[in-house]
């Protein structure tokens, strides 16, 4: 504690769980946008990872409410938000937006995988066959015509899903940006920043996974895909970081009453996590690396390595950004006269171990999915890709 904080502010209410929540939702929205770039905007280069990104979005979506539930004082009452919503509250939209998005995503995955499941159904027997039948809702037939129909539905759902994905994440930014009591949060730019950082984190996680998996399994990688991902990562991260800087710049330039304490926050408590790590290391770093990849003619190995490194740095950047927003806003006292402090414990309910589990489990789930429906089929197999 430093300076004067209101007596009730000595306990930070929103913990690392609330840092993870916008982080994971950001991955959901970002990954979905990547899949839509293929389905809706027809970016052929992204075809190899379109399906992968769709399932990633779904897996992360499953885990987005988990940190929230773990944080609630009364998780048993979580459904109250659907039963007795207060529509004057920005937060009350969560249940509805989340449900809508989940429906769209499940439907899109169902239509996207339908043809494959039908094939499995035909090959299977016994219990598996019955399970496939239930999953298919009894629609166990396919031909070119239904394939075309499925694709069309997928494309429509992907199109509808883009605004919903943006709303899902923009809404998370709005949750913070609309808190007028907190000068570090209260800015209309907040939800735009959240949308762009979500897209950055989504592209970054897919780039990271695609490069990691192809290296790990020694698969032939579609270089056009990597290049496109790198190009989009470069573009979106520039917008995201410039918006983040513009927000602080406008606060600094306006020189309002709150700026003096915000300046202290930035140069004091948040110096390492915000200035050194988020801005200098994880924003400037990948910007330089991706600029080099885009502008210089580097050997393929080197440039892919740089892209990989950038994706890791940008994933960290977005996590740091969430931390600096969520925690930074809370360690700043509403008395504007002091700061409290927060570091999560290791083994407590809302501690680092639980946080790590919540982040890692979706990746394991993705791997499990991959075992059943391989995202990156080995070329040796006779199935057409």
């Amino acid at each position, binding site marked *: 504690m430093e300076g004067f904080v209101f007596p009730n502010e000595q306990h930070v209410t929103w913990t690392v769980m609330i840092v993870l929540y916008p982080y994971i939702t950001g991955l959901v929205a970002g990954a979905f946008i990547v899949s839509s770039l293929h389905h809706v905007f027809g970016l052929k280069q992204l075809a190899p990872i379109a399906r992968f990104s769709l399932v990633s979005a779904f897996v992360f979506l499953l885990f987005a409410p988990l940190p929230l539930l773990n944080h609630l004082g009364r998780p048993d009452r979580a*459904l109250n938000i*659907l*039963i*007795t919503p*207060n529509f*004057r509250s920005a937060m009350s939209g969560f249940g509805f937006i989340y449900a809508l998005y989940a*429906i769209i995503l499940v*439907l899109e995955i*169902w239509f996207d995988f339908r043809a494959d499941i*039908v094939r499995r159904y*035909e090959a299977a027997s016994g219990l598996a066959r019955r399970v496939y039948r239930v999953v298919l*809702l*009894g*629609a*166990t*037939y*396919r*031909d070119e*015509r*239904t394939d075309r*129909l499925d694709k069309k*539905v997928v494309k429509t759902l992907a199109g509808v899903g883009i605004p919903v994905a943006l709303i899902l994440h923009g809404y998370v930014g709005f949750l913070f940006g609309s808190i007028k009591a907190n000068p570090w949060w209260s800015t209309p730019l907040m939800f735009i920043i959240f949308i762009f950082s979500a897209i950055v984190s989504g592209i970054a996680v897919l780039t990271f996974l695609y490069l990691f998996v192809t290296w790990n399994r020694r698969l032939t990688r579609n270089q056009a895909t990597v290049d496109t991902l790198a190009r989009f990562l470069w573009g979106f991260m520039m917008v995201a970081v410039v918006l983040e800087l513009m927000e602080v710049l406008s606060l600094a330039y306006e020189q309002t009453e709150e700026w003096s304490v915000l300046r202290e926050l930035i140069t004091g408590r948040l110096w390492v996590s915000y200035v050194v790590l988020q801005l200098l290391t994880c924003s400037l770093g990948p910007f330089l690396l991706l600029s080099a990849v885009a502008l210089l003619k580097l050997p393929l190995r080197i440039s892919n390595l740089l892209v990989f490194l950038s994706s890791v740095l940008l994933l960290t950047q977005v996590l740091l950004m969430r931390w600096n927003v969520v925690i930074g806003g809370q360690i700043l006292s509403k008395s504007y006269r002091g700061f409290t402090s927060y570091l999560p414990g290791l083994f407590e309910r809302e501690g680092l171990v639980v946080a790590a589990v919540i982040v890692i489990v979706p990746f394991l789930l993705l791997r499990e999915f991959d075992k059943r429906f391989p995202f990156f089929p080995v070329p040796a197999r006779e199935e057409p890709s």
Partner: protein
Amino acid sequence: MSTTSPGQAGPPTRYVRRVFLLVGVALVAAALLQRAARPATWGELGNYRTAGLTAILATEPVHLGKEGCARCHAEIFGLHEKDFHFDVECEDCHTPGREHVRFHDRFPTGGDPALAALASMPKEYTREGCLFCHRRLGARPRAFAQIEPAEHYAFLGVNDPQTRCIACHSPHEPIFLLAEVKRARIHPVIHECIHCHDTKPEGDYTQVDSHPAMFVCSDCHEGIVEDFESRKHSFMRCTACHLYHPENEDSGRILVNGNRRFCLLCHEDAPFRTGAKQPLVDSKAHLEMIADALELDAAELAADPRACLRCHLDKIHGDVVRK
């Protein structure tokens, strides 16, 4: 090879409709479920549960208020009301009394001692308790009575730092009993601002400190003050005995003091006093001795609040003082 129903031109595409119908049905079911899950009394007064309001409304209070205490402790309450502490609630020092009253209402002749112990209230406040209000702090309004304990004890020749305030000050009737009219004015004659201040105070008028010092006691009571200055107690200020002009105009008063208890605050012989600064006396023995020597009615003398002044008035004021 795909399975197609015989007799159909192409594969049926109704499954698309079926899927969306399923979603629609699920949504309608969810909406109905949501309605059914609403708690009782929801939405009657607003977007909330009326029972949430009535539950708080029906919560029982914990603090009684001093009138509640007065039901049984009328005598102390009577004293307290005349005392300068009249605005201090009994429960501020004695803790909330609900369970205490409950117990004695139910068992007028004394019930289970274990329960009685639970229902008993602290009789005295600790020294720290008095200092909550009376420790000298820079932020305290200056006219409020406050002391630095060490300084206060040194001034009074108290050598035991653990001495409690109640060794001298009775919390229910401290030194200055208020006049019958509790909220008497500053002075019997001079009681309105304009009697002294014919000009506006500089600065904030709510701060008595910012008022110009328009008069001192000697302006009117020159003889008395001059006489006082020549006597033993000249190191004290008039206001030590005669409070005037407290910080807020509606609780001020002026007193002709001489209260024995006030004298004994400094002069009573007590184990915690050194007596290096002032003569000490065992008041009870002293008064008995006087009554005996002068053949006075001992009971009458012991009851006289101004007994000290009968002999020692010359230490304070001379003949100028009435009686």
